[in-house]
């Protein structure tokens, strides 16, 4: 954990973030800090996620329910993409006749 930010540092970095807002995001379970012996810590990924949450709230006036839904869908999208990437890498490591067979199957002429 090289990039670890304390709550104060996160609030200082994200302009429209307040302590109340941060804890609100956490109660909604759309932000989950890392529990450490020194207290909660946030990583770059969290800071970018929080920035996005603030934008969705301020610029788009997304309400709380919609915010939770958007984040859930976004997380599913990124998760599915990351899994697909792993599958593609696994297929990429297979011999070329396997890849060819899969391509034909995907093209629908099996």
């Amino acid at each position: 954990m090289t990039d670890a930010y304390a709550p104060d540092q996160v609030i200082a970095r994200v302009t429209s973030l307040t302590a109340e807002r941060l804890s609100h995001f956490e109660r909604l379970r759309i932000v989950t800090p890392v529990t450490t012996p020194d207290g909660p810590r946030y990583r770059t990924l969290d800071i970018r996620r929080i920035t996005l949450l603030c934008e969705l709230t301020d610029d788009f006036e997304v309400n709380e329910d919609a915010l939770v839904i958007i984040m859930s869908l976004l997380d599913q999208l990124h998760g599915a993409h990351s899994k697909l990437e792993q599958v593609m890498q696994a297929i990429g490591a297979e011999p070329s006749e396997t890849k060819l067979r899969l391509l034909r199957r995907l093209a629908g002429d099996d």
Partner: protein
Amino acid sequence: MTKDPYAALGLTKEASADDIKKAYRKIARTDHPDLNPDDPRAEARFKAAGQAYDLLKDPEQRRRFDAGEIDASGTEQAPRGYYRDTARGPENPYTQSRTSQGNPFQGGFDADDFFANFARGQGAGFSRGAPGDVPGQDVQYRLGVPFLDAALGTRTRITLPDGGTLEVKIPEGARDGQTLRLRGKGTPGHGAGQPGDAFITLDVIPNPDFERDGDDILVTLPITIDEAILGGKVPVRTVSGTVKVSVPAGASSGQVLRLKGRGVKGRNGKGDQRITLRIVSPSRIDNALKTFMEGWRAEHAYDPRTGKETK
């Protein structure tokens, strides 16, 4: 950056404050990079519109721009990172339980079931109960684990937002980004519905003395000149305490010694500890050493740079 912020928003100077807000939101809605993770052009459009909006949303700034007092680049900002840039990694803690039940790529699955269920994002064991029986939700936590605790395994607890605690067993050899699943520790279900699971993503806190490469532990061991020349037993820290390692006579900086089985527990047994030697000169070169070296060099000069270009 676009020279004309009005153009970036598809407007003219006559636009009202409301028009500006509406135009920005329309572009942001369709082009926010995080809502268009796969469209690189969305970022350019969003950036231009965002900079234009930042300038024009403030009436005073807008007046000054219109009057030619400031130019459009007055609001140029350092490049920001978007969430999507970091969100795709397999270690993104927010995607751990959402796409499937745990990690479908972890061992011990039936290949036919796996491929059949993969697309639907459902693990085995998903069952429908009676109406009214609603399973509980999965809950995600992240836990920072000190390096040695992860290497050796430990028990710890997480304080929950509601004040309760959750007992967590960190397995020996736990990896950074690894997700533990605690069955039934999510939110309770309704009726006969099963409770959800807790997914705990581990964040290993680095240790200044140890590094990890797979199941091997890497350390650097400083040794004295005499230890390097004469060899000997030198104490070295391992994750499970200090042991003595034999430094061979004539050791060099960068040479790697291997302590078998002193790494962390992995799938294929324990890893090793790899020790990189680093020769450290004494902090003060006294006359005895200097005189000896001068005498020795006169008779026994050697060139460790043979075959290497030096100037």
